[in-house]
């Protein structure tokens, strides 16, 4: 998996792609955290549009970033989730931490 990070004023947008599991999540966590710590954004958007597989490690990835964003007084938004990834996120009750959006059906 990979994470492409884009900055826009007080926003950070992370485009995640590939498979998110315990192995891959540990590889990209640090680069997202570095960006948050240095830029102190008011909003972190995690875009799951190109994620082909996700297990509960995806929940940990979002929860961990949510906690870090709280320390810089920012919010989090999760976008473009596939139906199954959305199912996992809702199971975890992540909609209470931030906005969780499914991929729009074209």
């Amino acid at each position: 998996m990979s994470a492409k990070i884009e900055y826009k004023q007080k926003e950070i947008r992370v485009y995640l792609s590939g498979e998110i599991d315990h192995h891959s999540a540990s590889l990209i966590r640090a680069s997202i955290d570095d960006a948050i710590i240095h830029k102190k954004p008011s909003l972190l958007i995690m875009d799951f549009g190109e994620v082909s597989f996700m297990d509960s490690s995806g929940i940990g990835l979002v929860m961990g970033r949510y906690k870090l964003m709280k320390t810089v007084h920012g919010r989090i938004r999760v976008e473009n989730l596939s139906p199954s990834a959305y199912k996992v996120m809702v199971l975890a009750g992540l909609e209470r931490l931030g906005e969780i959006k499914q991929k729009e059906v074209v």
Partner: protein
Amino acid sequence: MNCTNEMRLIMDSKSINEGFSRVAVASFIACLDPNIEELTDIKTAVSEAVTNAIVHGYKEKEGKIYITVSLFENNIIRIKVRDKGVGIKDIEKAMEPLFTTAGSERAGLGFAVMESFMDKVRVSSKPDCGTTVCLEKKIWGKRI
């Protein structure tokens, strides 16, 4: 129930094998013609069980993970994921949603995900001997 087909897989408890194990199981059950949702559910549940074996069973140290996939006559699949790691002292507690011993990056939802994506989840464990997670699901395929 008569088993019609079976496969066994032994692999090192390395996190890089998580992807391989779920794809291997999904490939094996492809002969039952599952739909995409069923395949994703099974891959996710296998990923959770294997991750548990690596993170909790073996505490990220070396060990072997044993996976058996059995197919039965009525399109029921049974997947067993076994490790010879530290075992679980209190299975009920370990299966509680949000309970985790692995720190803030683990959501503590592995068993909750397995239970919501599979029909049956059974866990047997003995401290210092290891843990076996048994997952069952009926495949409906395109009949739904």
